[in-house]
């Protein structure tokens, strides 16, 4: 999953175009409930079931995409 794919997921969940690869989910209006949408979207796209803790330690599209890559490898 490329960082661009993850940016697209963040944009959809946060309902804003102002997301880059380094946008922090929790500093851009994201909360734990919206986090479940990110996790569900990643599971659908990639078959990787991340947890909310993954999002807490990797809160940007770039970091979260890295995490998906390391889990699916």
């Amino acid at each position: 999953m490329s960082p661009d794919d993850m940016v697209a997921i963040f944009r959809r969940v946060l309902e804003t175009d102002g997301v880059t690869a380094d946008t922090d989910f929790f500093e851009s209006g994201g909360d734990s409930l919206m986090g479940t949408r990110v996790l569900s979207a990643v599971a659908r796209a990639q078959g990787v079931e991340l947890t909310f803790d993954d999002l807490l330690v990797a809160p940007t599209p770039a970091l979260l995409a890295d995490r998906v890559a390391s889990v699916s490898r």
Partner: protein
Amino acid sequence: MVGIVPAFLEMARTFPEKCAIECDGRESTYAELAHRVRATARELGTAPGPVGVLTDRSEATVVALLGILAAGGVYVPVDPSFPAARRQALLEAAGCTRVLGPSGLVPVPTTAPDTAADGAHRASPAPEAGDPEAPAYTLFTSGSTGRPKPVLTPKRAIAASVASLRDLFALTPADRVLQFASLNWDTCLEEILPALTTGATLVFHEEAYTGSIPRLLRAVAATRVTLLDLPTAFWHELVRHLAESDEQLPDCVRTVVIGGEAVSPARLAEWRTRDTGRVRLVNTYGCTETTLITHAVDLHGPGAPGPGAWWGEHGGVPVGRPLPHVTDAIGPDGELLVSGPALALGYRDLPEVTAERFVTRQGPDGPVRWFRTGDRVARRPDGHLVHEGRLDAEIKVRGIRVDPGEIEAHLTAHPEVGVAVVVGTRVEDRTTVTAYVVPQRADADDAALARQVLRDLRASVPGHLVPHRVTVVPGLVHTAGGKIDRLGTHRRHSPAAAPSAPAEHRGGLTEQDNR
């Protein structure tokens, strides 16, 4: 009315070998659980007063709850993930001198020397073991001053409510109830107590608490859970997930209980398309001060009327009729009033706030005590209540009641913040909390300040008190009378709140159920 502990011990005699709690695959029988509950009660001694419990997702928290009740004490759950200062403040406000945690029973460390001495004799007077008016637990609701208000719930309230809930959920010993709710809010008692006083099994599963809906659904299927009790805000996300992933709810689930805020008609319509006709979807309403659930209605499933019976265009999805132990009334301003055995004793050590919310009025058979919920409701011709809004500024954040004043108090305590207001806006099925802050210093960098305030708040207060957005503004809007105008500030400064947006008046603001 049979108390909670006698009802549980009766189940332990009837089904000693039956599984009471399954925790990540490990099973404890009713006999084993009763043994541990008695041991905890012995360790605490007679009438131990308020006892703090550092909760975790395990059998230990249930043992602590029932053990404290069995000893005649007052259960005070505290989230160990809260910042230390807040944990300490909660324990002191509840009058706890001892706290049960992973390292056993330890004294509460005291911040001020005189609080310690005071705490001991201020602890609730030792109640008679069987006195139904004795307090059973203390939970907290949001307070406008920044300090949460401790709600004292007596034994008779929890006994009356749990008896009604066993019937409402139609629980049997064959049921398996997932423990999902945070252990620090009263919803978890809806899961734990009806199950363990019926002979049913309470299920803990670590995958249920990961924030991942796919993992939750797998855990539910693997542990054959029959009853799920979910915050409405989370249920909205579950329905989205099922619809977008084209999945169904696991077959083992027969009842889904929801509550906490207004049900989205769009999510309800999607739910109906997910092959859920065999599943009871029960909408519920209640306040901490009126103990768990006071009103309920089957929205969908075997006991519900057909499509369109009551959801949709006309006034929103109902919160239902009063349960058998509840009497309700609607005040002249549309406020829902609740009376009956489920009323709390009041807010601990806050007589003025208690007198304001718990009022006594003359009834035909003598004085009646009512709780003023602060919720505006209307009663439909069929007797079901529809929630129409709040009489005050209270908002719901992911199902948790929040007084905006509590967040504002935390914001203004920040050294870089002068003044602040907090506004909740509801868009579709979600509430967004926005803070408008005026910097302390005129030369502040707005973007950097907003980021810093958000970060500092995340580090110092629980998640439900952290706004989604912090917007730095030059000044707040005041009313003609000179008071700070939350809505006016929001209207002036929110980019989304264009002057033409009429939803801004009432519909756009958070106006939800009070659970």
